[in-house]
């Protein structure tokens, strides 16, 4: 019920935002929701979604992508469709989204709740993404299977947290790394918001693990505590997860944001930036959550780069598979859309 109210509120807010967009196109932006949803961005997102929905792009089983990381591509694609307010089972993309949800649910059922590719380095990453996508879909879909699948999937995350508070490649409480931990933390936050019970101690321990990865000197985040150098992508991920845990004003979070901002612009906004989409998926969210000033500093530059790289058919190419890059591009460009609870301030 809470979920439905939450969603309804979001929709109403969203409608108000879109209405105000048309009324105040040339005025200085006053709110984030209105600010950057320019016509070219809306067109790019729509074309991107259309490319994902094009016949033959979605696999017959409801998934997107090749053989390697279908769960990740499917989850991100599902998120991309939901981002501008599309609802599973309704409208032009309703069938595509339902098929994707069924794919994730069937996989979870056949693997005792685990929704990732087994024995794969991306296994837990995919699982976290699937939990995130299903949590966000739960309030919008009438599919009763989502709730039980989510509970089982969340239970796997809870049981796989290691002593340090983190997660790694496989659903077992052994070692941990920042990237995988952030993914589970975001998934748990989303599931918790969707009404699945998540112990606060789990979140607290995960938050402590993320903090333990911060480099004292630079404020950036490292792959694991104690080792290596801090990087842009992992810092963006670390900051985003801390903000989601309600730690926006924490000194460490602010230092992480300072790190992202101090990173050379010609590099981080450049087309050839390593892990461009992964990095900016988190960085864009972080900057939005950080505040209007940071968001306005960031969004025009990153959206300009993304718009310039869209292909004619509406998709995007990158270092990874098309569905992955296209979905992430949409999720970055669509940050001003506030339909998904996980992306709300």
């Amino acid at each position: 019920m809470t979920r439905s109210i939450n969603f309804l509120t979001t929709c109403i807010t969203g409608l108000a935002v879109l209405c105000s967009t048309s009324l105040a196109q040339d005025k200085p932006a006053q709110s984030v929701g209105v600010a950057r949803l320019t016509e070219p961005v809306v067109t790019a997102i729509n074309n991107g979604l259309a490319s994902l929905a094009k016949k033959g792009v979605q696999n017959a089983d409801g998934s997107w992508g090749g053989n390697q990381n279908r769960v990740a591509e499917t989850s991100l694609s599902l998120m991309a469709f939901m981002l501008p307010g599309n609802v599973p089972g309704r409208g032009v993309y309703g069938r595509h989204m339902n098929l994707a949800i069924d794919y994730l649910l069937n996989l979870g059922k056949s693997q005792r709740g685990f929704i990732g590719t087994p024995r794969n380095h991306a296994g837990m990453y995919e699982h976290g993404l699937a939990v995130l996508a299903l949590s966000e879909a739960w309030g919008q879909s009438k599919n009763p299977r989502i709730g039980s699948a989510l509970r089982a999937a969340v239970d796997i995350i809870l049981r796989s947290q290691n002593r340090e508070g983190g997660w790694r490649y496989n659903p077992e409480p052994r070692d941990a790394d920042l990237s995988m931990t952030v993914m589970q933390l975001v998934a748990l936050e989303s599931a918790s918001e969707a009404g699945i019970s998540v112990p606060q101690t789990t979140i607290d321990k995960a938050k402590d693990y993320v903090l333990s990865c911060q480099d004292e000197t630079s404020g950036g985040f490292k792959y694991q505590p104690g080792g290596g150098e801090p990087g842009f992508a992992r810092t963006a991920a670390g900051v985003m997860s801390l903000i989601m845990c309600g730690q926006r004003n924490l000194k460490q979070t602010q230092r992480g944001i300072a790190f992202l901002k101090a990173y050379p612009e010609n590099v981080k906004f450049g087309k050839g930036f390593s892990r461009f989409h992964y990095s900016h998926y988190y960085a864009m969210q972080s900057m939005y959550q950080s505040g209007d000033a940071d968001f306005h500093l960031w969004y025009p530059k990153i959206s300009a780069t993304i718009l310039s790289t869209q292909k004619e058919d509406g998709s995007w190419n990158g270092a990874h598979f098309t569905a992955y890059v296209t979905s992430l591009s949409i999720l970055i460009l669509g940050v001003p859309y506030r339909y998904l609870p996980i992306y709300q301030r």
Partner: protein
Amino acid sequence: MKAKLAASLLNLLLAAYSIAGSPPAAGRYISQLDQNDWILRTDALHYLAQNQVKSALPPIRSIAEDQSETPWIRGRALIALCKIDTQKTPPPLLVEFSSANESIQRAAACEALENYNDHAARDLAKRLISDTDAVVQYQAIATYAKIERAAAWLTIDQPTRAPTPALLPLTLRALAFTGTDEALERFITLIGDPFKNQGQAGAIVRFLADIPEPKLIPIYLNLLETLETEHPVFPSIISAIGNHKHEDIVSSLSQMMATNRERATFTAARVITLLIQAPELGQALRKALSTAKEMETFQAGLIALGCKEMQPDQHQEFFSEFLDHSESNLRTLAIRCLSHCKEANLYEILSKIIDDEDRAVRYAALNALLLAPLDKAPTGKLVAYLEPALASTDEPTRALGFKILSHAGNADDFKPALTMLGDALKSTDDLRREAVATALGSIAPENGIAPVARSQGYITDWMVVGTFYNDKEHKAFHEELAPEKNIDFKATYPSTYIWALRGHQNKPGEKAIERDVTWNEASVDRTNGKLRMGPLLPPPGTFSLAYAVADFSCQSAKEVFLSIDGDDAFKVWFNDKILAEEIAPYQHRQSCIANRSKIPVALKPGINRILVKSANIGHEWWVRLRLTDADGKPIEAYKQ
């Protein structure tokens, strides 16, 4: 030969495929049947029989039937076969073995016969009691007793009266199966002596271990009473008792403890600890212990009752009684038992004993407090509570005291702790000073850290500005930059930085990024006095330098000593005069610490100023300054 080859191939095939329902090692043991080593083959037969691996029946039958095999291995195969292939009546192969020329095969037939219970089995066993070979006879007697139980007495009475030592295990097995009073009375008489001979005793226990007769439990327990725990047969007897039903063991132990014999109480406590851990035995054990006198009985009893599965909370008061015992071992043990009690308020119970005269007792008590729930700790009064430990002259006791303070204390305990331990912060014993500072640091409120550091002589209050670009050769470190020409806390300085962290290595000729930097207040945030530059300055902090200025007051002129260390390099001016300059050799991703100890410094009346130029190539970045007198005692430096 062909048969053996065929059997081998079959075994290999069976081993190669996992068989549903079989234990994990079944395949390996089936393969092992093909080994030439008779020990390995016997081991395999035993495993496959114990685990009733049906898929092993064909190769085992093949061995039993193969006339080219030795009578011994054929006999072991027959026994395994009959154990796995559960039929109601003895198979023809067994009957065939019972008439074999080799006595070893007939004995195997007798042993295999134990798996059957019908008339045919009984008649066959009875016939073999008249066998010419003594081993066959006594195996037959045991088998017959297993089938006929009490009714076997008339048949076995005569032959079990005075067996030779070699036949004693089979004789005892027959008597145990019979289970009548007369049979068990003879059993006790016969079993008495052989336990002096360890080899014989082991064999006897092996022969009896699978007999489910509950009347054997008291006999086993009585045997245990006569044995030291280290006796090799002791674990075999414990294991044999463990084959019985839980309620039968509990009943026998209760009866044993009710005798109030000291040795019986000791033995029962050991069995409870090692085997059964039944909470329902707790009260009986405590009652038995109430009349005990020996140390080892109390120890065994406390250990048994303190096991987590024995619900030690039920015995909390009982354990507490031992805290006043004259024997320190028992006091220690009681503390350990109490630490297993979830409901116990250890802070209350152990309040007096943390000052025990015996070190081991003190350590046990303090370690127990480390395991106690934090909500039981006396918040705000923890320092007073721990005073005996914190003020102890014994270093480990003191260290445990500090550990508990760090673990269970909070900001409410900080002021009392500072009052009690403040003097130690001024100690010339660096180890003690640092231990106290660490403990205080862990419970200090945010504004409490700097005073702890200051008390140790560290300079804590600074103005800092940075970062300025500094290359690997420390070019800027050696140049005179604007902040050191004229210190103006209101000034803004143009600066540059380069980004050379993971993901982007600055390319030759790449333009540095510009930004403005200003002076900001800063304070050390660790009790070790380190001014950590990273958290105070904008990123990235690599290839960087910064300035820090500290002003502090002095009543009158005096000579003091300044110690400086830092990562990677520092230059220090005191009252506008250069005092020290050190650069640590660069090591990739490692601490590079430069230091200068006890530099004489002449303080002037009024305000004195220290200017530090600190540089960092990579990894950690901090600087630390400490003022002491000639004796090494800290001098607090702050601006009045």
